[in-house]
C-alpha cells in the first residue's frame, strides 16, 4: 500500500508489520484485524437473522443459537468496533496534534498484539468444544452453569484483549497531554482528538471493573471461589454491577469517538468552522462523566428498589441534554454551510436522524416503569442497534472513506461509496426499525425461535431482508477497497481539498517520521487558517530542521502477547483432570511472556536519530 511496502519483499513487509511501532502502521493493523472480526461478527448476525426469518425454524439449534448471539455481541463490541476506532485514532490523532508518534510507541504495538491474540483466543472457542453461550453480558448464574469451556474462553480472551485496550487508552491520554505541538492548546484540539481523549479516560476507569469481574468469573469457574454462588454466601448481582459499571461507559467509549469523527466530517464538508466548538468539548466531557453514573439502568428489573431506580432514571435522562447539544451543533454546522455531499458527508447526514431515533428510545427506557415493559424484548434490541449501528458503524464507514486517503494515499471510489451507503442505510432501517414493533408486540430477545401466527412472522421476515441489504453494503465496501487498491492512483495531499486540521497538511504518503519540522499551531482548524492566508506549505514551523529521534522496531510486544495466548490455553484446560499437558503449557506461556519482558528491561532501547542532512535531502516520505 505505502511506497515503502512496494520496494520490499513480501517477507520483509510482514516482518516490518510484526515489529512496527509506527502509529500509522499500527493503524493499518488495527484496521485489518478489526475488519476481520467485523466480518466474523457480521456472518454471525446473518445466521441469527436467517434462523429468525420464519417461525419454528430449525436452521440452527437452540444451543448453537445461544453461542452465535453471544459471539455476535462480544465480537462486535470488543473485537470490531473498538479496534476499528483505534485504527482511526492511531491514524489521525498524532497527526492532528502535530506529534511525531504516540507517547509510548512500544506500548502501542503491545496493545494491538494483546487485543489480537485475545480476540483469536476467544474465537478459537468455536473449534475447541463450543463458544460461550451466556450472552455478551454473561450474567453469572447463567454463565457459572454453562457446561462447556466457552465461558472460560470468554473470560480469558477478554482479559487479554482488555489489557491491550487499557494500554491503548493510557497511551492516548499521555500522547494528547504531552505530545501536542507548540500552539496546540486544549481548546484548539480537533474534536476527534478531544473525543479520543475523553474516551481514553473512560477506558482507564471502566476497564478495571471488567478486569476484576472477569477474574471473579475465572476464580468461580476454575478455582471454586464463591463470589457469585449464593449457597456459599456469594451474590450473583455483583457480576451485574461490575459488568455494567464497565458496560455502560463502554457505550460512550465507542460513541464519543464516533461523534468526533462526524464533527470533523461535518465541518470539512460544510466548509465551515464547527458550530459551538467549546460547547461540543463541554458536552463531550459531560457525557463522559455522566456515563459512569447510569449503569444501573440496565438493572431496573433486578429489584434495587424504587429509590435507586429513580436516581438512575433521572441521571440517564440527563445524558440526553449534552447529547442534544451535540446534535444541534452539528445541524447548525451544516446550516448555511457550503455543503459538499461526499460519501462521508452522506453517512453523516444519515447518522443524525438514525442516532436521534436511538437516543429517543433510550430516553423511553430510562423511565424505569416503562422499562419493566420493554426489558428483554426486541425493543431493546432495536434501541441498541440504532445507537451502535446508527451511531458507531455509520461513523466507521464514514471514517473509512474520509481517512482512506490519509492512511493509504488513495481515494475510495465515490460513486460506489454512495451506492454502498444506500444499501447499508436502507438495510439498517429495514432490519431494526421494525424490531421496535416486534418488541412492543411482546417478542422477547435472545429466543432461538417463536410460534407462528402471533403477528410476528412478516416483521421478522422483513427484518431478515434488511440484514441481507446491509450485507450487500459491506460487500460493496470491500469491493471498493479492492478496486481502489488495484487502481493505485495516489491521492496526494489534502485530497478532499477542504481539510481543516493538521493531518491534511502533511505530504502524502506520510513520511515515517511524520513532521519534518514541528508545526506551529495558530488557531482552531490551523491548516484552514494557513490555506486562507495563502500559505502553500500549509504549515508554519515552530523549529528549524534538526535531528529527529525515532524509536526502534521491536518483536517483543508480539512475544509478550503470544506468551499470554499460550498460557491462556494452559489455564483453561487446567481444570480438566485428563489434560496433564495443561500445566506445562501454562508455565511455558508465562515463561515466554516474562522472558520477553526481562529482555525488554535489560536491553537498553534508546532508539536512533534521523540526521538533519538526511532530512534536507529528502523530498517525500520514502525511507
Amino acid at each position, binding site marked *: 500500500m505505502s511506497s515503502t511496502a512496494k520496494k520490499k519483499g513480501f517477507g520483509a513487509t510482514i516482518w516490518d508489520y510484526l515489529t512496527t511501532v509506527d502509529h500509522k502502521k499500527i493503524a493499518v493493523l488495527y484496521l485489518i484485524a478489526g475488519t476481520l472480526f467485523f466480518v466474523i461478527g457480521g456472518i454471525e448476525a446473518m445466521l441469527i437473522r436467517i434462523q429468525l426469518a420464519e417461525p419454528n425454524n430449525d436452521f440452527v439449534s437452540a444451543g448453537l443459537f445461544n453461542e452465535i448471539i453471544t459471539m455476535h455481541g462480544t465480537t462486535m463490541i470488543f473485537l470490531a468496533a473498538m479496534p476499528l476506532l483505534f485504527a482511526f485514532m492511531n491514524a489521525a490523532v498524532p497527526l492532528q496534534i502535530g506529534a511525531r508518534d504516540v507517547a509510548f510507541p512500544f506500548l502501542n504495538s503491545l496493545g494491538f498484539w494483546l487485543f489480537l491474540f485475545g480476540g483469536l483466543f476467544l474465537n478459537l472457542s468455536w473449534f475447541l468444544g463450543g463458544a460461550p453461550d451466556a450472552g455478551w453480558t454473561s450474567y453469572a448464574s447463567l454463565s457459572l452453569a454453562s457446561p462447556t469451556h466457552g465461558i472460560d474462553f470468554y473470560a480469558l480472551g477478554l482479559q487479554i484483549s482488555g489489557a491491550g485496550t487499557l494500554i491503548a487508552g493510557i497511551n492516548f491520554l499521555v500522547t494528547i497531554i504531552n505530545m501536542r505541538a507548540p500552539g496546540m492548546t486544549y481548546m484548539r484540539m480537533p474534536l476527534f482528538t478531544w473525543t479520543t481523549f475523553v474516551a481514553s479516560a473512560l477506558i482507564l476507569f471502566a476497564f478495571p471493573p471488567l478486569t476484576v469481574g472477569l477474574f471473579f468469573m475465572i476464580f468461580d469457574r476454575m*478455582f471454586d471461589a*464463591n463470589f457469585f454462588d449464593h449457597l456459599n*454466601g*456469594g451474590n450473583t448481582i455483583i457480576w451485574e454491577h461490575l459488568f455494567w459499571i464497565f458496560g455502560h461507559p463502554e457505550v460512550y467509549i465507542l460513541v464519543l469517538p464516533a461523534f468526533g469523527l462526524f464533527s470533523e466530517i461535518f465541518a470539512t464538508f460544510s466548509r465551515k468552522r464547527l458550530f459551538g466548538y467549546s460547547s461540543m468539548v463541554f458536552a463531550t466531557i459531560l457525557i463522559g462523566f455522566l456515563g459512569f453514573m447510569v449503569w444501573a439502568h440496565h438493572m431496573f428489573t433486578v429489584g434495587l428498589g424504587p429509590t435507586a431506580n429513580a436516581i438512575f432514571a433521572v441521571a440517564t435522562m440527563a445524558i440526553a441534554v449534552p447529547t442534544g447539544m451535540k446534535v444541534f451543533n452539528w445541524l447548525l454546522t451544516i446550516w448555511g454551510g457550503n455543503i459538499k455531499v461526499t460519501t462521508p458527508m452522506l453517512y453523516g447526514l444519515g447518522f443524525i436522524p438514525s442516532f436521534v431515533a436511538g437516543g429517543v428510545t433510550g430516553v423511553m427506557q430510562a423511565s424505569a416503569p416503562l422499562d419493566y415493559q420493554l426489558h428483554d424484548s426486541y425493543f431493546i434490541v432495536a434501541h441498541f442497534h440504532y445507537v451502535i449501528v446508527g451511531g458507531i458503524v455509520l461513523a466507521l464507514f464514514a471514517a473509512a472513506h474520509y481517512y482512506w486517503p490519509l492512511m493509504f494515499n488513495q481515494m475510495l471510489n465515490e460513486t460506489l461509496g454512495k451506492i454502498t451507503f444506500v444499501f447499508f442505510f436502507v438495510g439498517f432501517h429495514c432490519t431494526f426499525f421494525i424490531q421496535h414493533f416486534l418488541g412492543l408486540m411482546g417478542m422477547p430477545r435472545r429466543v432461538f425461535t417463536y410460534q407462528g401466527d402471533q403477528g410476528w412472522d412478516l416483521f421478522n421476515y422483513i427484518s431478515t431482508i434488511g440484514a441481507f441489504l446491509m450485507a450487500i453494503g459491506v460487500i460493496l465496501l470491500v469491493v471498493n477497497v479492492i478496486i481502489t487498491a488495484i487502481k493505485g492512483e495516489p491521492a496526494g495531499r489534502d485530497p478532499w481539498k477542504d481539510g481543516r486540521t493538521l493531518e491534511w497538511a502533511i505530504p502524502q504518503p506520510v513520511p515515517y517520521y511524520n513532521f519534518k519540522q514541528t508545526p506551529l499551531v495558530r488557531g482552531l482548524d490551523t491548516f484552514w487558517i494557513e490555506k486562507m492566508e495563502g500559505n502553500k506549505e500549509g504549515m508554519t514551523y515552530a523549529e528549524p530542521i534538526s535531528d529527529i529521534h525515532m524509536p526502534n522496531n521491536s518483536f517483543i510486544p508480539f512475544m509478550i502477547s503470544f506468551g499470554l495466548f499460550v498460557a491462556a490455553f494452559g489455564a483453561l484446560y487446567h481444570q480438566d483432570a485428563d489434560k496433564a499437558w495443561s500445566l506445562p503449557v501454562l508455565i511455558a506461556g508465562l515463561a515466554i511472556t516474562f522472558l520477553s519482558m526481562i529482555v525488554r528491561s535489560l536491553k537498553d532501547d534508546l532508539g536512533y536519530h534521523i540526521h538533519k542532512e538526511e532530512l534536507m535531502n529528502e523530498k517525500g516520505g520514502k525511507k
Partner: protein
Amino acid sequence: MDLKTKFTPQSWPAHPENATLEGKNKTLGFWIFLGGETVLFATLFATFLALKNKGPNGMEFSTQSLFELPLAFIMTMLLLTSSLTSVYAMYHMKNHNFKAMQAWIAVTVVLGLGFLGLEIYEFYHYVHLGFTFTQSAFGSSFYTLVGTHGLHVIIGLAWFILLMLRNSKRGLNLYNAPKYYLASLYWHFIDVVWVFIFTVVYLMGVLD
C-alpha cells in the same frame, strides 16, 4: 538532553525524572495507570464489603473471630516505614548520590520482604484454621483483595531488585532515573492501598 550523558551532582537536573520527554511521558503515564489501579482496588474493596462475613449457613468464621490487630499493626508499620525509606532513596537520587540511593532501596526491599513474610504467615494461619479461598464468599473476597495487594508488593519488590541489579555498575543517568522514580511511586501506591486495607478490612472488621 542526551540519555547517556554522564552527570555530576552539580550538573544533575533538579527533576531528573522529568528532564527528558521519555521521562515526562513515563511519569504522566504511570500516574494515569495508578488511576486505573485505584479503580481496580476500589472494585475489590466494594466486593469485600458486600461479601464480608457471608458464607454457608452456620459459618464459624467472621472478621471478629479471625483478625488480630497486633499482627496487622506490625505489618502496617513495616510497610509505612518502607515507604519512608524509599523517600530517602529518592532524596539521594535527586542529589545524584547513587550509592546512598541503592542502599536505601535495599532497606526498603528488606522491610517489604518482612511485610510479605508476615502476610504469608497470616494466610497460612487462616488456611490452617480452615478459612480458605474456596470455603466461603467471605474467604474468596478476602483473599482476592488482600492477595492482590500482596501480589503488588511482590511486583514492587521484584521491580526494585531488578533495578538495583541492572544498574549496579553504571550509576545514575537520565535513562534510569525515571525508572527508579516510578518504582518508588508504585511503592507509595501500594502503601496507600494497605492503609485502606488496614482500615476497611482489619479495623472495621474487628471493631463492628
